[in-house]
């Protein structure tokens, strides 16, 4: 979606402000929000693409004004409610008010290390040949889905070159809607900075994105 999260190339946010000796978490509640989100992935049954969409799918003003973990928390709450794992009255009460929904599995402490080590690989087997090869000229499609996509606005319609054929990977645009993994060939596409930002741009800048085949048109 063309939401508040699609920030590449936007102005007015001010300077980058690194915090010296920044702690991993700035408050106790952030640690809990982080860990609860990771732990709930298994019983929740959502995938990372669904999670990203829920985070970004809010009014842009909210997205930009909320802190990082406030957004995580809001998304966890929303996804839990959507799947019937908890309800508004329970959240207001701060307690469970009815029996739990039955879930397949929960994350046990013994499984944490193993689960983290497995991670979430997204490469999948395929019989489809890749449409593009390194060096091919491509143009990014101009798509504007209101649903989840990983094609940022700042590259849409622009000409680039295939730098690398990465592999066949889960396609977030499908996976986020629950329509299935629909794996597609994934490529690194390289752009000249001036193609993206105009002829007056810094000639020493090159930018790349990782783009699935459905985002690409042949320009060769």
């Amino acid at each position, binding site marked *: 979606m063309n939401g508040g999260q699609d920030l590449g190339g936007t102005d007015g946010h001010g300077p980058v402000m*690194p915090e010296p000796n920044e702690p991993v978490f700035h408050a106790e509640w952030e640690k809990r929000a982080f860990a609860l989100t990771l732990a709930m992935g298994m019983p929740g049954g959502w995938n990372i693409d669904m999670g990203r969409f829920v985070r970004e799918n809010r009014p842009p003003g909210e997205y930009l004004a909320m802190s990082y973990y406030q957004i995580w928390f809001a998304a966890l709450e929303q996804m839990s409610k959507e799947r019937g794992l908890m309800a508004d009255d329970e959240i207001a009460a701060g*307690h469970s008010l009815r029996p739990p929904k039955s879930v397949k599995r929960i994350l046990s402490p013994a499984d944490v290390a193993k689960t983290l080590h497995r*991670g979430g690989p997204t490469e999948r087997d395929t019989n489809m040949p890749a449409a593009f090869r390194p060096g091919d000229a491509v143009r990014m499609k101009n798509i504007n889905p209101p649903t989840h996509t990983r094609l940022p606005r700042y590259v849409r319609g622009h000409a680039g070159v295939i730098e690398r054929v990465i592999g066949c990977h889960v396609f977030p645009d499908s996976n986020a809607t629950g329509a299935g993994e629909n794996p597609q060939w994934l490529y690194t596409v390289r752009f000249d900075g001036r193609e993206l930002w105009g002829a007056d741009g810094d000639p020493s800048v090159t930018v790349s994105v990782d783009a699935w085949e459905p985002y690409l048109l042949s320009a060769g």
Partner: protein
Amino acid sequence: MAHDDGDRHHHDHGSDLSEMQLRTRALETILLEKGYIDPASIDVLIETYEKKIGPRNGAQVVAKAWVDPTFRQWLFEDGTAAIGSLGFGGRSGNHLVALENTPAVHNMTVCTLCSCYPWAVLGLPPLWYKSAPYRSRAVADPRGVLADFGVTLPKDTEIRVWDSTAELRYLVVPMRPAGTDGWSEEKLAKLVTRDSMIGTGFPKNPGDAS
């Protein structure tokens, strides 16, 4: 910890803080009572990312690449496998790509759309990486962003910005500082800063205070 940054860091202050504390506690209570989470798992997760997984991992990778040409070649050909051989990988590290900084090319990584970051080798990202100023400007004005870090590069150095839009996670391999001949991997790893592995800084020099 400084709070003189206005609203930019969105640190929670005063009543904001207690509101999030209360809400998070309520959510955790409900999830526990329903049996969806095991409290010990929560503790292990927090400890893992607060204490165990961090930029030290990436520093080890970089230091090895500096001393071991075979590893270095492997690292650039197959980052996931090479880094995996050191025991690092898994969550946000299933698909790792190492980027080589040279005198001609300086690499910077960003996730404009959210906060994708190579947790497996760098731990959790700093707040600035996840915030609007970096996400908006890194792809459009990387030199301006580097200036915010006090970093200047020669005008004709190519700056290559990698926007992590998929599940690939990028690790910048900075150039080895001069004056480190014969140094052990352990000693070299101490020079490798987190920012140098994102591309917003350089490794420390041998003379710098640690």
